[in-house]
């Protein structure tokens, strides 16, 4: 068997023919996806379309049965574990916000801050001036400066989501995967989140998975529709929502 030839590509993230099955159920079915550097992409799709499984494959939590997953034109993500993929520059925000509940907002960001990861250096390291400045910067982007000494457990749902986005920023990844950032948010919070993400997109590539159509509209970016584990349609939100197959999947027959 000859080694699979990796297609040389300018894309930041390149998925081709990815299939994942759990006990015969195909969560992803020959899925292909291309994300360009600097792009923000919204991924929508009904429940069970494979959105979260796709995130799991990209971050190394799930190994695909077949298919290629290439990051930055060179790294084969199907061979790496979570920590290596995170170090390469892929950050993930989970569907359910998982901030560190017994740490303050500031400590949450400090833990996420890119750089210090080795346990023996952390034993003696104090936060540097550059690190503290970066923390202040992130706190202002996510609008949580006043809450920086609050414990994670005491934050509201919306605040936790923003803290998560801040933690992603602190990791300074090349690509940010954001899973359902506005689930359970009020309209005002949803609008704020769209602003925060647009600001984040100025310096980072972003993939957003979301159900909320008004939020996707507020983002105003290219949309990919997933259905039964593969791409159904791609284009602007207006284009895809005019597509009869997408209407059928969302509204049923």
């Amino acid at each position, binding site marked *: 068997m000859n080694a699979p030839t990796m297609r040389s590509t300018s894309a930041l993230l390149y998925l081709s023919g990815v299939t994942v099955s759990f006990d015969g159920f195909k969560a992803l079915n020959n899925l292909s996806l291309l994300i360009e550097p600097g792009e923000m992409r919204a991924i929508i799709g009904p429940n069970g379309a494979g959105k979260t499984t796709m995130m799991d494959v990209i971050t190394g939590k799930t190994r695909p049965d077949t298919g290629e997953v290439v990051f930055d034109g060179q790294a084969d993500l199907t061979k790496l574990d979570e*920590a290596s993929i*995170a170090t390469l520059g892929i950050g993930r925000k989970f569907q359910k916000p998982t901030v*560190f509940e017994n740490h303050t907002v500031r*400590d949450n960001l400090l*833990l996420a801050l890119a750089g210090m*990861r080795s*346990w023996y250096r*952390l034993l003696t390291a*104090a936060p540097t001036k550059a690190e503290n400045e970066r923390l202040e910067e992130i706190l202002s982007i996510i609008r949580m400066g006043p809450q920086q000494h609050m414990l994670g457990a005491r934050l509201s749902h919306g605040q936790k989501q923003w803290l998560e986005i801040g*933690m992603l920023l602190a990791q300074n990844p090349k690509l940010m995967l954001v899973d359902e950032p506005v689930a359970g948010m009020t309209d005002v919070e949803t609008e704020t989140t769209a602003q925060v993400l647009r600001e984040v997109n100025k310096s980072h590539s972003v993939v957003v998975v979301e159900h909320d159509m008004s939020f996707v509209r507020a983002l105003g970016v290219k949309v990919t529709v997933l259905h039964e584990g593969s791409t159904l349609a791609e284009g602007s939100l207006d284009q895809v929502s005019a597509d009869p197959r997408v209407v059928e999947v969302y509204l049923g027959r």
Partner: protein
Amino acid sequence: MITRFLWQGMDRNLRLFVLLILAVGISLPLANLILAATNPAHVPSWVLQLVGKYLCYALLALAVDLVWGFCGILSLGHGAFFALGGYCMGMYLMRQIGSRGVYGNPILPDFMVFLNYKELPWFWHGFNHFWFAAIMVVLVPSVLAFALGWFAFRSRVTGVYLSIITQAMTFALMLAFFRNDMGLGGNNGLTDFKDILGYSVQADGTRAALFFASSVALALGLIISAAVVGSRFGKALTAVRDAESRMRFLGYRVEGFKLFVFVLSAAMAGVAGALYVPQIGIINPGEFAPGNSIEAVLWVAVGGRGTLIGPIIGAVLVNFGKTWLTGALPEVWLFALGALFIVVTLLLPKGIVGLWGQMKSRSQSRKARAPA
């Protein structure tokens, strides 16, 4: 550098507590040695021995809390590290007996003569030196913890499965040490000690010195634990406890963090065991009994898991209760232990230290609500 590292975790309460431990470590032996037996402030030797034992247990509890309270690894086998440290010290003490044993063999301890050993087993070599034994006290538990942790943490064994493995480890060691072929005294263990560093282990002065050494070890253990927990490493450690997979997605190699505290904790338990054995005068395979390890976890739960002072308070209080109850109402002790477990789980999830914190914050909020 090292002093800065050691002081980074100390706050005012901890400093006071360290001073308290050292004050006990100095005053009790002095009250035993200097004051006349008729003086009401005189501390009898048996009290000194008892409290010395509590100090060793407190260090063991602190070690358990370091992995359980701060990293979420519920070890039900820390008694094994304690016992291994104890055996290393016991081997040194056996070699110090020399020709004063019953059989008068200058090299072989009595049990080996009795079992027809012709020469010293290889692993007994070097234990005639105190420095060698002292290194082994730290090294043997650390190596075992490293080996166990290396495989367990890399294969992501967590939660109850890890607890069962640690419990099985101490049980297996107990069975192994019960065998006479092991060359460590079988079920009688190691005893009849005479000297430590040239001083009789029975002498009041030696007992006082051992007591003081135990308090210093406990204080040092507390300072080291505070430094580890108070560092950025400590923040990452509690984050691993609360959301391990989240830490992986942040790019942390969680195994390294777990392995470091597990080994550090095993070394602390080993030192505790090594100080325990000369004060008690015997080490036998019973110290490996799974129940001992579970009791140590209970001390931590009673005192306050995830606090540094809690396990020390818990270990002293529960063992004081045990000493008193097994004397006054021996048949009640095990029921009391069970009841304690239930009460702590239901009513004191954060232990005694947590209760104190709750009362403090309640009185503060009452004060805040009171009209100015």
